[in-house]
């Protein structure tokens, strides 16, 4: 189990996350919903342990181990993975070598992962993970990379952003694939179709867990209430 206890996070004097508690179990799908700027992606980055996202207070536990002070690499080695909202580009690195990443992975496995994200291996293996890939293609390559990592906990930050509407079924399929493989899936999204596919949801508002529970109820509440909400939120990218 991955557990966030009383996590607070401040940046430039602003408290962005104000003491949240969350629990994620393997084999289940969770959703983090909320308006722009409430701190959804920040929660994902805090779990992954990115360098600018160390909690100012609180602890993170993974199966009882305090991982709050572990860096990104150590967390990844323990099975935590992140699907980036806007994945970085890499010059001179082919899709094949990016997915392989110096590990002992068979070509067939790479091809299988590409097929799962609707990318034809023969067309993409030799292409570069650089600016020439479209945003949607790059996102799909990142999704394939996450699949090959076989994570125990996968954070998917806006998995549908930049991807054509025809690929929504594929994303839902990949979320279910992770679930079947026993991973905990933490999906950060605005999209109802994806949120409803999750079992349990956290509604974030102004850096707090405002509501949590069965996804249907949370999504319904969010739709009815949050559009006209007067809470002030900090922009995550500030």
């Amino acid at each position, binding site marked *: 189990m991955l557990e966030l206890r009383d996590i607070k996070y401040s940046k430039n004097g602003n408290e962005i996350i104000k003491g949240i508690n969350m629990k994620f179990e393997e084999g289940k799908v969770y959703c983090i919903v909320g308006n722009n700027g409430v701190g959804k992606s920040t929660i994902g980055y805090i779990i992954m342990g990115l360098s600018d996202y160390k909690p100012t207070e609180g602890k993170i536990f993974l199966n009882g181990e305090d991982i709050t002070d572990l860096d990104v690499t150590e967390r*990844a080695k323990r099975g935590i993975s992140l699907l980036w909202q806007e994945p970085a580009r890499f010059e001179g690195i082919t899709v094949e070598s990016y997915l392989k*990443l*110096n590990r002992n992975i068979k070509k067939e496995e790479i091809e299988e992962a590409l097929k799962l994200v609707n990318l034809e291996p023969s067309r993409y293996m030799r292409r570069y993970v650089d600016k020439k890939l479209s945003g949607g293609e790059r996102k799909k390559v990142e999704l394939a990379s996450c699949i090959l*990592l076989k994570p125990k906990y996968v954070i998917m930050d806006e998995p549908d952003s930049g991807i054509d509407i025809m690929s929504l079924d594929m994303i839902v399929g990949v979320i279910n694939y992770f679930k079947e493989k026993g991973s905990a899936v933490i999906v950060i999204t605005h999209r109802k179709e994806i949120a409803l596919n999750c079992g349990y949801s956290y509604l974030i508002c102004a850096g707090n867990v405002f509501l949590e529970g069965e996804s249907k109820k949370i999504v319904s509440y969010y739709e009815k209430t949050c559009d006209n909400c007067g809470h002030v939120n900090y922009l995550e990218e500030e």
Partner: protein
Amino acid sequence: MDIVKGYEKEFEQLVEIYEKNTNDKSLRSPGVATIIVSGNKVVGLNSVKGMHIRSKERADGLVMIDVEIEDNTIIPIPVHLCTGFLKKRGEQILKFNYVIGDNVKVKFKSHCILTKVEKLHHYMESDMYIGKNSFVTYEDEHFHDEGGGVFVETITRMKIDEGSFFSSKFYETKTRVGRINVVMDIELLKNAKADLESKIYGRDDDIIDIREVLRLNGENSSGIAKSTVFATDRTKAHVVNEAYGNAPYARGHIECNEIVKGDNVEVSTLPLLKVLNDKAELTHEASVGRINQAQLETLMAKGLTEEEAAEFIVNGLLS
């Protein structure tokens, strides 16, 4: 292959070093056009149909090589230019003059093997004219001594005539640089295109100077000049990319990326764009700094350490 009598040993040594560094065994093949220079002597020559090579060695040590390719010649296998220096110290001065005809398709692979020297000044000056509607590529890879005693100066002046394409790749990434000064100055006529790329890995106290110039003199001509330098330890690197848009619809792009590692490097880049025609368009991108944090953390989030991630990124950039 014509191997000059009395120089068989030097020829063998150079070919052996080349094969070891590149895994390419084609140099001895009779179907491959080859020019092999050791020190101040042309030790091996092989030409193919439609190509003429003449060499002259002057008493003062200058080696002059003329390469002419007839109109409508397609050379299917790359032409190899192999220059090496097998003595410990000295100077190697080379002057190449290329005249490439119309409708020619040719690829040059140049290798500079300077792995056995303590102190060497290698100076190579080249002039190249490419006729109309030709397609020419030139790959230049250097292998230098790890002691840092090599000083390489290469100056290339080119004129690319109407409708032709030229691409150049200059790589010095596998061995230490020593000191290197690369100048490439290209004039492009109507509808001509050029794509220049330099990649250099600086170690220890290497000194790197690159100057790439695109003179877009013809209507609808276009060019890209891109330099990537990875500077570590006490490397000093200075890159100047220039583009001149002198004709209607000329388009040029210059780009320099200098990645630094360590507190003792000294790097700089200077882009210069000058437009003399209001229908020309020039752009540039430049970056100087450490490896992008988002790239590092993307790979670290897959289990790589920071060092492994940095190496993976740099290998991609310099590949």
